[in-house]
């Protein structure tokens, strides 16, 4: 069992012809993820990492679907409009690697084509564009992971995005610990600390550091709750933002009952003036939402709070 992705997931890469997109496609293919194709407007017909590039998602989906029916490959010129009654493409995932100014159009295109999971790698998307896409996705019950998300690794199964980089086999090991982080770097680092101490991961999910998140800690905890492989979860949290308080509510409502250990970074931020923005965009220091307040609220519902992030490993070890 795995969360978010499986061996059957079909991945398309939006912006595959760009530098980061091509790197992302290669990273996924290297780990055995089923990358099917890429999409870049006006670059249809090219190939990247041996995968075909299409002008639009609708073109990609219809060509792939017709190939699956073993009909001969057809030439497609221009865009094919998505049918409003198009079925949800539940096995499809889009990974979005485009510049920030092109992100909104790319994400909306994936939503229009009913791609069930959209992993937005793009950093520094204007918040208005993010809110727009999240509203459009919600209407269709489509999950966005990100923005600013390096993706997901399900060790031994597949990865979305570039997490783990070339060292993925050294850093990630299959196991029973779920990992969630706002920070891409810490997703990797925490997985490494776990593996180094003999604890494998059921999945590592980078939810991204923006103020508005398509998928929150609580959303991922719900997935880990119903995942039999997951025995305990570690979270790298941050000062600022209110997402840690959603965890408190979730636990109070018995929506998550497995052991959970968390580290909240950014105590030094209390030395800075209120309202100052450091770290991730989401981490605006706000009254009543600092690292100390979060730790208190979380420990009151039984979450294990780590002093140093390295301590997270020891806290979950007994449950692995």
């Amino acid at each position, binding site marked *: 069992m795995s969360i978010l992705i499986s061996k059957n997931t079909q991945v398309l890469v939006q912006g595959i012809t760009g530098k*980061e997109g091509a*790197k992302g496609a290669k*990273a996924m293919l290297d780990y055995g993820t089923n990358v099917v194709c890429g999409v870049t407007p006006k670059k249809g017909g090219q190939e990247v990492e041996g995968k075909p590039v299409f002008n639009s998602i609708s073109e990609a989906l219809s060509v792939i679907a017709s190939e699956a029916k073993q009909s001969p490959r057809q030439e497609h010129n221009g865009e094919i409009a998505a049918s409003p009654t198009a079925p949800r493409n539940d096995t499809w995932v889009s990974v979005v690697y485009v*510049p*920030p*100014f092109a992100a909104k159009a790319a994400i909306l295109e994936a939503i229009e084509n009913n791609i069930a999971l959209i992993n937005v790698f793009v*950093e*520094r*998307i*204007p*918040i*208005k564009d993010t*809110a*727009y896409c*999240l*509203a*459009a996705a919600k209407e269709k019950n489509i999950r966005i992971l990100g923005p600013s998300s*390096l993706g997901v690794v399900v060790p031994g199964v597949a990865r979305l995005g*570039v997490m*783990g*980089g*070339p*060292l993925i086999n050294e850093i990630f090991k299959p196991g029973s610990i779920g990992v969630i982080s*706002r*920070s*891409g*770097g*810490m*997703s*990797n*680092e925490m997985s*490494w*600390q776990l593996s180094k101490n003999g604890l494998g991961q059921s999945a590592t999910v980078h939810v991204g*550091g923006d*103020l*508005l*998140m398509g998928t929150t800690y609580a959303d991922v905890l719900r997935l880990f709750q119903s995942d039999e492989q997951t025995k305990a979860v570690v979270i*790298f949290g*941050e*000062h600022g933002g*209110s*997402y840690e308080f*959603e965890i408190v509510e979730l636990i109070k409502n018995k929506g998550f009952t497995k052991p959970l250990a968390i580290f909240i*970074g*950014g*105590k*030094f931020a209390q030395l*800075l*003036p*209120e*309202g*100052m923005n*450091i*770290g*991730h*965009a989401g*981490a605006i220091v706000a009254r009543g939402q600092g690292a100390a307040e979060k730790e208190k609220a979380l420990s009151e519902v039984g979450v294990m709070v780590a002093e*140093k*992030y*390295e301590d997270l490993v020891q806290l979950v070890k007994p449950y692995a």
Partner: protein
Amino acid sequence: MNLYEFEGKNLFAKHGIAIPKGVVVRRGDDVKFKIKDLRFKDFVVKAQVLSGKRGKNNGIRFCSSVDEVVKACEELFAMNIRGQYVSALLIEEKLDIAEEHYVSITYDTNKKQPVLIYSRQGGMDIEDVPEKKIEKVWVDVRQDSPVVILSAAKNLVGEPDPSGASLPQDDIKEKLWKVFQAEDTRLVEINPLVKTASGEWVAADAKVAIDDDAFFRHPSTGSGPTVTDWTTFEPRTMMGRLPTEREVAVKKIDEGEKYYQGTAGKYIELDGDIGMILNGGGASIANMDALMKVGLKPANYTEYSGNPPREKVYQLAKIVLSKPGLKGLWMAGVVANFTNIKETFLGIIDALDEMKPTYPIVVRRDGPESKEAFELLTACAQRNNLNIKMFTKDTSMSETAKILAGMVI
């Protein structure tokens, strides 16, 4: 970025929200000359700072003569307000206030949509207004006008206005929504929204935070009636002083042509003496904590992330190293996912070759092409005789903070 009140009011005026008549006065300006054309009976002089609670902290003065205004200006320029540097003063006509209301729009991270907050009890902290006296309306960001939604009672929380939905302040809400949308803001707040004795609605204050990530939609070229040029906003910091040269210089790095290739633009100058070059928004804040835990004091907060090119890292590192009085340098980063360690280290090496620091340096990093990166850094250390210790993923970041503490005299 937070705007000063006068900048926020300019945005309000652009979208048709009435603001009081007034002028902005800078340090060294001849105040009497600046206000010679203002025929006001009574004046209000307001310190321009980047955070709230100005009134309670004596940052707003009411005056009835030009001499009083001059004196108030002198006093306000000599103050820091809640640690905030007074960058300018706004001298306005004192309003004849009949009612004070509150209205704001910001993003609700829970619902992931903008929320319009309105109360007939303005002029005080909205946190101090009883919950049932506050109206909250969640607006779909895809809507052009919030007023349609305002009438939908299901979205209303608290007490709706007793006199019905279509009130003059609804017009203000709609205009404020236009400011929120068109100006790419994260927060717009009018507190108080004043109804004057003669029945006009005026924004007596303005709190606006713009979304820095939307800067490409607000360029210096092509600015016109619809686009506000953000490049004209003066540099600022919330650290209670003018931004330092180094802070201003770092901000420029990410505004170049390659702005979307990685991020190098975080540099906040602090009081300590350990130069910090950190990586990633999450690890960097955890490492600030880790450094202070071993008794060292950071000279700055700096992080780069997202695979920036060599040139960006070089500029950033050079600026960090150029702060006088450093006693050590800590470059701590995670096992990178996709940031190319060789490419980014080349930028650091360029800076080290140029600056040749003599204080202790500790580096902890790993990730793509890190082997080549450390070979290059070792060669750089040898040719510059650097006092440097280097670590990869086998040593945790916090451990290397301890090691640096042992090296720093």
